[in-house]
């Protein structure tokens, strides 16, 4: 048998982080809003029971939330990021093979623990809960897809104590019987319809299907899914995170933006953020895309959404050069008389900064300019974001992010500590 894989998933992670420092929120329905208080991105079990849906726009569910006594928080990514790092560090102590999959999930390879999987998982769960205060669920199975299923089943079955091991065929089939196709990891609604069209009605059918037949009618991804469901691992543990294909910086505005000057400030700010991320990973980008949209939730307004890309002559990580390109893209995008809701910058064609080739007329980033960028990044890292900025980013912009219900940064700012 291949080494078992565990999926550890934090229960209602954002709500759990909020509750750790605000115990009054325990047992209460809590929702967390996305950046800029746009829509619901996390719900406590109590809020789920009240029928609040994932992704509901805040301005639509606001009334309902107010009358039902639901507690609202703006997302506090500083806090969630720190708590996530703590959870992952505790998990590292339980297996040398850890793949952080998202802010609240990690896969662990459990080779060598075969004889005591259940006990190991329960110990892991208890330690994470005691040390960090975050409740987690653990699903263990021979493949990632089945581990996801085990985790989901553990969460929905209170008597499991948050841990479920699916090693035998009988255990796996019993769990598969209780879910729908769309509950499987990576099966979207449209794919489920295509599967049903070829006679695969449920996850058990999919497990028993002929992998080649499924591939013929759908894709190689579904062929892998069949094998994974049969307990044959096709998606391996990636210990080193894959190289990034794209870097994105985008935000909705706190209020609608109508002037070109403000839109330029926002795009420059996003470019600077994205370029900082780029340099942190020692990358350079060969292409930059700027996009803007109006508010699609206001059908009475004139609507506009557009993007423009600029290919750089030579890949660069210099904020100055990238911003020059971004401003050229914005030149082509700008329409006056509109109320803009969101703007963003995407950096594409990422390459390692030290392998950039010069062209006949253009040279790679000047070492002096890059030294300046490193100094800029170091100052902003040491004295806080925004210490040194480009003048074009504007000062105290009015379009800044809205977060009306944000909790303090309990674990990362001295002035925000919990007071007892």
């Amino acid at each position: 048998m291949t080494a078992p894989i565990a999926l550890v998933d934090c229960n209602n992670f954002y709500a759990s982080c909020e509750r750790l420092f605000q115990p009054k929120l325990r047992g209460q329905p809590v929702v967390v809003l996305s950046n800029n208080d746009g829509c619901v991105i996390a719900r406590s079990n109590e809020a789920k029971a009240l029928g609040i849906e994932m992704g509901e726009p805040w301005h639509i569910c606001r009334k309902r939330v107010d009358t039902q006594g639901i507690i609202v928080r703006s997302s506090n990514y500083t806090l969630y990021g720190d708590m996530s790092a703590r959870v992952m560090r505790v998990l590292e102590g339980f297996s040398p093979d850890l793949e952080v999959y998202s802010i609240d999930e990690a896969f662990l390879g459990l080779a060598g623990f075969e004889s005591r999987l259940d006990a190991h998982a329960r110990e892991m769960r208890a330690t994470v809960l005691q040390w960090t205060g975050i409740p987690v669920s653990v699903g263990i199975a021979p493949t990632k897809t089945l581990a996801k299923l085990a985790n989901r089943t553990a969460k929905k079955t209170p008597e499991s104590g948050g841990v479920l091991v699916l090693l035998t065929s009988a255990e796996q089939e019993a769990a598969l019987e209780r879910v729908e196709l769309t509950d499987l990891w990576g099966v979207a609604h449209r794919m489920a319809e295509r599967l049903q069209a070829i006679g695969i009605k449920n996850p058990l059918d999919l497990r028993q299907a002929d992998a080649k037949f499924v591939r013929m009618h759908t894709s190689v991804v579904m062929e892998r899914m069949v094998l994974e469901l049969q307990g044959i691992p096709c998606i391996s543990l990636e210990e080193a995170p894959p190289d990034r294909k794209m870097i994105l910086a985008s935000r909705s505005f706190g209020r609608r933006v109508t002037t070109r000057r403000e839109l330029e400030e926002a795009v420059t700010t996003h470019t600077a953020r994205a370029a900082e991320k780029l340099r942190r990973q020692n990358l350079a980008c060969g292409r930059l895309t700027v996009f803007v949209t109006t508010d699609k939730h206001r059908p009475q307004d004139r609507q506009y959404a557009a993007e423009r890309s600029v290919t750089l002559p030579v890949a660069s990580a210099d904020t100055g050069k990238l911003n020059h390109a971004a401003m050229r893209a914005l030149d082509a995008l700008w329409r006056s008389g509109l109320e803009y809701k969101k703007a963003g910058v995407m950096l594409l064609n990422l390459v390692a900064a030290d392998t950039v080739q010069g062209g006949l007329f253009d040279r790679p980033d000047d070492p002096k300019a890059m030294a300046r960028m490193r100094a800029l990044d170091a100052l902003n890292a040491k004295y806080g974001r925004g210490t040194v900025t480009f003048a074009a980013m504007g000062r105290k912009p009015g379009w800044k992010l809205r977060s009306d219900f944000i909790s303090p940064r309990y674990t990362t700012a001295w002035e925000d500590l919990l007071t007892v």
Partner: protein
Amino acid sequence: MGRYSVSRKGMGGRQPGEATKVVRLPLRVATIARRIAEGSLRPGDLNAFFNVEARSNVTVPLMASPAACGFPSPADDYLDRPLDFNELLISNPSATFAVRISGDSMNGAGLFPGDIAIVDRSLSPFNGCVVLALIDGEFTIKRYRVKAGGIVLQAENKAFKDIVIPEDSAFEVWGVVKHAIRMF
């Protein structure tokens, strides 16, 4: 020398007229004994003696002088890591949290309003330790006592009464208070 100067060679060591004795010591101990006699003992010397390990990344000076030429610096043999407060205050980073004290119920234990208490969640509470506890959803810092009648939370200030935890109450130890920091 000025009237207020107390600096004198051999300070911290032998008093004038005090008797001496020749002893044979292992080199490590002898170094420390000599430092004590010279009045130049530093915390780092004891760390090296007890073989304390570094837990966090700090810059470690290797040598004070280039190795190849000239006279070696007389300080080379005595170089040590700079003090690292993380090492002193945080034994389990994943489980360590900081909170600010507001009340004065723990004045007797040296916890005053404005102080920062360092809380370790990985420790289980034991009789006599200071805990950050939750009673009915409210945070409080108190001395943790295990008595015949159950758990008692004691303030260290006569103006506050002991809190006896009833069996069925919503009580939880959030973490154990290990240190406090005060800014003057």
